[in-house]
């Protein structure tokens, strides 16, 4: 049998078979019903994801707070104060003098150590903020369909974070004006 003859036979047979069925009018109504059903299911799924993200954020906050509370403020404060060798003092008559850090100063600083403790605990708060940022990233990933856009945002965010960490660690927050 010739190939063209075979092809004609196949085409004819397929067309004759499909002529047997006609699309029913109800089908589109069923499609719309199916769409509504799936839309509802999707809404439920999204809200479920949101609950999960909220749960993880809450977990990260609790984790961060636990870290903050677990810090031994006393010992870290002493450690910090011990590193102080000289103290510059300005008295009431606007006289500036430099003295060695003696016990009295240490004692004063120790009894009024809120500032020092705050400086120490801010590190742990940063951990908490980092966790929050990560989970906010998850949330963005869920919302933004365009993965490329999300990744750009993420990279910019991480670079900013790294820059601020570098400034804090090596330049002590004092960034030179370029």
């Amino acid at each position, binding site marked *: 049998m010739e190939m063209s003859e*075979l092809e004609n036979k*196949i*085409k004819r047979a397929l067309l004759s*078979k499909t002529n047997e*069925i006609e699309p029913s009018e109800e089908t589109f109504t069923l*499609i719309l019903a*199916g769409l509504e059903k799936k839309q509802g299911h999707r809404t439920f799924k999204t809200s479920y994801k949101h609950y999960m993200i909220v749960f993880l954020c809450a977990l990260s906050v609790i984790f961060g707070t636990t870290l903050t509370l677990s810090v031994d403020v006393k010992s870290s404060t002493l450690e910090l104060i011990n590193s102080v060798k000289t103290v510059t003092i300005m008295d009431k008559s606007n006289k500036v003098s430099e003295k060695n850090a003696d016990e009295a100063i240490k004692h004063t600083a120790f009894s009024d150590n809120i500032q020092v403790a705050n400086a120490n605990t801010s590190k742990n708060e940063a951990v908490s903020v980092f966790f929050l940022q990560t989970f906010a990233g998850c949330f963005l990933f869920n919302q933004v369909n365009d993965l490329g856009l999300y990744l750009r945002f993420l990279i910019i965010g991480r670079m900013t974070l790294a820059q601020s960490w570098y400034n804090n660690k090596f330049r002590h927050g004092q960034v030179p004006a370029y």
Partner: protein
Amino acid sequence: MGNTDLIKRCQLGDLASFSELYSLHRKKALGTAYLISNQKGIAEDIVQESFIECFQKIQTIKNPEAFEAWFYKILVRTGWRMVKKHNYLLPVGDHNLEGVSTTMDFSSESHISETNLIVHEALAQLSLPLKTVVILYYFNDMNIEEISKVLGCFQGTVKSRLYNARKQLHDVFNENELNDSAVNIFFSKRKEYGLDGNV
């Protein structure tokens, strides 16, 4: 309204445009689904599922001109999934019954020729990938490149599948032609020797 405009409106969530798009493609889609599944009920389910998925994911289409390939990709995959599920749910003995029932449907139609019947039986014997290539090539009038996009495979794979399917169909035809000629010779010899039933 053109296909491109309809798709753009569908992307904005316009159901009236989606209805129009459905009307444009439903007959061809149902035909393809019916040829893949061989059963009317399953074919309608495939079409429904495919159009639902189509509306849900239509926003992902960047080039509306490629809609047909994109849509048939969904339809073919849904079809394969449903056929496999159906075959899995049926007991082993019932698989042949399905083929027989299809054959009986054709024989009940008096105007369908014997050749069509042979083609249908031969197509039913083909594996799903081979059958799909034949359907997309001969029924949907797609070229090799379009079929490769629909099936997500290389053009060479499509060509080889089409070649194998044609070969199998050709063999079935030859076998039937041989049988026919043998039957004709048998009856002519009976007549020659005076063994015809009327004598």
